[in-house]
């Protein structure tokens, strides 16, 4: 049993256990999430993404430090991939955040991707809602790359920082992976290394080519929302991604990163004054929750009472095609 009061008073044991339940898909978590939801909406949610080794954890550590100096409580959600072979995971992001291990106003939790429901969905969204409701003021989410299951997290974040290291060809990766579209701020980290200025200018160039300025949008009769096509993120109008050079190991440039974060938070809050912006965010959030509910329902039907095996039998003996079988399963499932 976890009490709602314990959660709302930010009891660490209760909170940690709820996150465990969410991660494990324990049915009781859903009930608590429903009760917690009315308390969400106060925290600032920041996504920190980027290739393995780019310096996300070290940078996160620097951000924790600065937010703590401002007197804000900080929760960190660090997501690393599960091993596709064993299903286990080695989670090491905490190593870079040692300094805050015994600060009561810092909460750090590591998660493995686990491939929830066959990788179609993840539980990070629920984790962030829980932390927000519990009263954590700053919620930092560290994730790798832009896999399908991470897009949802980035939609949820108010601000997304893409961390890049020079000399890894990250700039080219960025366009291919659609990272240009998700970044509100680029942190060109390891700028003590050669090539940082080149990375900055290449990024700048790509933004110049690929970015449709709000003015242009308006000219083409665009909506007041600057919405990118590929990730369907709802972003504040008029925001042009900032590029900041950092050295996470020394803290150089992190103040500038904090400034960029504060500016984006302000832009986000201003945008929230606009009813249609709020509605668009809400739409996005609901669609993600709805999609997960659909998947969960469908998944448990398939895995229940041999349904999947029956389908496989028919496919293997050639008596039916997958399109028909999928349609039939959906019809049975929703009693259409």
């Amino acid at each position: 049993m976890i009490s709602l009061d314990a959660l709302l008073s930010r009891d660490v044991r209760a909170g940690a256990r709820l996150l465990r339940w969410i991660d494990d898909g324990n049915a009781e978590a859903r009930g608590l999430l429903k009760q917690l939801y009315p308390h969400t909406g106060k925290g600032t949610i920041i996504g920190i993404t980027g290739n393995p080794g780019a310096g996300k954890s070290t940078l996160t550590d620097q951000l924790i430090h600065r937010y703590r100096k401002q007197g804000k409580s900080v929760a960190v959600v660090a997501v690393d991939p599960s091993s596709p072979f064993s299903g286990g995971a080695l989670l090491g992001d905490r190593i870079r955040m040692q300094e805050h291990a015994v600060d009561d106003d810092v909460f750090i939790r590591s998660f493995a991707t686990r491939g929830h429901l066959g990788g179609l969905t993840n539980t990070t969204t629920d984790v962030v809602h829980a932390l927000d409701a519990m009263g954590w003021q700053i919620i930092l989410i560290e994730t790798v790359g832009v896999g399908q299951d991470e897009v949802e997290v980035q939609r949820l974040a108010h601000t997304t920082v893409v961390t890049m290291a020079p000399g890894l060809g990250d700039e080219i990766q960025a366009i291919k992976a659609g990272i240009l579209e998700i970044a509100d701020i680029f942190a060109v980290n390891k700028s003590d290394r050669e090539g940082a200025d080149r990375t900055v200018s290449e990024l700048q160039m790509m933004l110049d080519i690929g970015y449709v300025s709000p003015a242009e949008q308006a000219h083409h009769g665009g909506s007041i929302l600057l919405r990118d096509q590929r990730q369907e993120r709802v972003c504040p109008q008029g925001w042009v991604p900032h590029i900041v050079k950092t050295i996470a190991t020394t803290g150089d440039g992190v103040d500038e990163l904090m400034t960029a974060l504060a500016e984006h938070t302000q832009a986000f809050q201003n945008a929230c004054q606009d009813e249609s912006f709020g509605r668009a965010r809400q739409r996005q959030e609901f669609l993600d929750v709805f999609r997960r509910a659909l998947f969960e329902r469908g998944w448990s039907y398939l895995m229940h009472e041999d349904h999947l095996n029956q389908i496989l039998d028919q496919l293997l003996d050639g008596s039916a095609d997958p399109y028909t079988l999928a349609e039939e399963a959906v019809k049975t499932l929703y009693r259409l």
Partner: protein
Amino acid sequence: MTEQRKIRVLIAKPGLDGHDRGAKIVARSLRDAGMEVIYTGLHQTPEMIVSAAIQEDVDAIGMSIMSGAHNVLMPVVVEGLAEKNAQDIAVFGGGIIPEDDIPDLKEKGIKAVFTPGTPTADIITWIKENISPK
């Protein structure tokens, strides 16, 4: 929701010595055995270990100690967990620990002690038999 429980283990390296080879080998083997392993790095104080274990809501803590400080550090972690009402988290240890010290450690709540040369498979078996995910 579909339930998918996993054993979560914190592998910690308390004390001043800088040898974490053993700890890393254990961490990797546990991962390969399907567990989620949180590795916190070198020079952990008991306080840091207790706090990390609670935040991560692990099922067990494995401590690797090479410096001879096991008689102090391991029991302090057990006490620290009890103080935070987290005695359900099992503590086990490994490293250079004389056989003679083991009974005393067990008395103080350390659930298992693995001396150098213990095959990692034995540690995995012990965890699977004695620890169940919450």
